[in-house]
């Protein structure tokens, strides 16, 4: 094991004990894999996987005006959320670019905001600077833990660890809702959310409680095929499921419109940062945009490889993977001109000096069987 010098989540010792391969990620030492990325991917698609996502930042927002305030900074509706509802959202800059993509969870009398680890400091600064009187912010980054159980067997593994009534409530939960529950004797917020394209749950809890809950889940879930999973598997799972990853499909330059996240853009909101720019961009319709492609051959694409339409370079690869849930084809997201992003467009991806054919397909690449 390579000794690195990053921050450690509350589950660091568990990762080491499980033979996790730790790599620096957004300032933390995080497991990229345990037994192997493809095996872990398979566990999540067909059984269940256990993830430590404690590197992501948890902010707590309090005050009567949180919804209205956050509505002015983001593209999706916040104030209309009901208690125990979760919602995807994107904080935007004046040019319509994305500061971060996030999840809001509305609780009984506060809000939980989960931001990307890589953007944690930027987002904390942004929120602190714009915080009006009457709203309180608390930063639980690093002190609170986040454990995800993802996969078709997630509910069967998690429910028996909850008190009887909570177990039943948990099975009945709708996607993108959350509920307080006692898991393995520990108080947690349990949300039916995830970043894998499968059914699953995310558990927010105190860092000190995390090792106990992690071990209890592994012990209870192993007979059902639950395996610890690293960030390597998570990246393939989210890419197959068509979910953007900040810094790849979304950035300060790549707007929610360009990233294909119009479904979350509520232009009916009276005003928010970047609204005019996004409206204008959508109306012009001439922007570089994210598209999904499947490559013809077996040669994998990689981030940054040039993409051609005819003889003209039209953009570059943003994410790529060999996709087990897409017939082991090479898939990629590309950031290209409008013509190159049309469904069925034939593109060329330059790999070590040779052009390889790729065809634009509909996102997501993979949807779980209903």
């Amino acid at each position: 094991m390579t000794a690195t010098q990053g921050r450690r989540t509350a589950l660091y010792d568990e990762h080491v004990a499980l033979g996790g391969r730790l790599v620096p990620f957004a300032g933390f030492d995080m497991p990229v894999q345990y037994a192997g990325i493809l095996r872990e991917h398979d566990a999540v698609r067909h059984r269940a996987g256990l993830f430590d996502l404690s590197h992501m930042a948890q902010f707590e927002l309090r005050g009567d005006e949180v919804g209205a305030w956050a509505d002015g900074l983001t593209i999706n509706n916040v104030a209309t959320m009901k208690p125990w509802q979760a919602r995807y959202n994107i904080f935007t800059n004046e040019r319509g670019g994305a500061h971060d993509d996030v999840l809001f969870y509305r609780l009984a009398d506060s809000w939980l905001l989960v931001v990307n680890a890589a953007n944690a400091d930027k987002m904390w600064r942004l929120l602190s600077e714009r915080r009006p009187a009457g709203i309180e912010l608390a930063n639980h980054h690093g002190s609170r833990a986040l454990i995800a159980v993802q996969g078709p067997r997630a509910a069967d593994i998690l429910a028996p660890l909850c008190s009887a009534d909570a177990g039943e409530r948990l099975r009945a939960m709708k996607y993108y809702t959350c509920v307080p529950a006692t898991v393995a004797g520990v108080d947690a917020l349990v949300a039916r959310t995830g970043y894998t394209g499968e059914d699953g749950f995310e558990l927010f809890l105190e860092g000190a409680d995390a090792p106990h809950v992690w071990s209890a889940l592994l012990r209870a879930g192993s007979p059902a095929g639950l395996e610890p999973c690293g960030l390597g598997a998570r990246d393939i799972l989210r890419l197959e499921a068509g979910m953007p990853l900040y810094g790849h499909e979304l950035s300060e330059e790549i707007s929610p419109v360009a990233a294909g996240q119009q479904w979350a853009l509520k232009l009916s909101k009276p005003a928010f940062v970047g609204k005019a720019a996004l409206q204008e961009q959508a109306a012009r319709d001439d922007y570089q945009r994210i598209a999904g492609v499947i490559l013809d051959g077996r040669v994998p694409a990689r981030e940054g490889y040039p993409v051609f339409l005819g003889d003209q370079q039209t953009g570059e690869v943003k994410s790529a993977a060999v996709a087990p849930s897409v017939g082991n084809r090479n898939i990629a997201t590309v950031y290209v001109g409008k013509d190159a992003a049309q469904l069925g467009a034939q593109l060329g991806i330059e790999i070590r000096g040779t052009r390889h054919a790729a065809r634009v397909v509909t996102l997501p690449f993979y949807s779980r069987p209903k």
Partner: protein
Amino acid sequence: MAQPAGLLYSKEHEWLKLDGEVATVGITEYAQHSLGDIVYVELPRVGAEVTQFANIGVVESVKAVSDLFTPIGGEVVEVNPELESDPALVNREPFAGGWLFKVRVADVGERDNLLSPDGYEELIAAG
């Protein structure tokens, strides 16, 4: 972890087995484990002339592209046909079915530039 005897090793984690004037080349157990799931192997074409320690292809894992070097010079006479459809064979059997290519060695003396099993073991133990 003892390294298989009867093979020679490069600092780039390739192994070589000399059989008369033909050398079979692969990557070591240590290399396949470090790389993780291998999804693509790009090898030189049969007939190519390669020089010792030259970059002659790539091994791609799920996460990364790694250069492949030949531990010995000569003419490539065969590439492993199984790897086109099953690159993970390199993970499963790095010293056997997952061999990469065979070279008709131009200068057998080049083997003096390679490591013994003990020498390679020391190299990876030193990290």
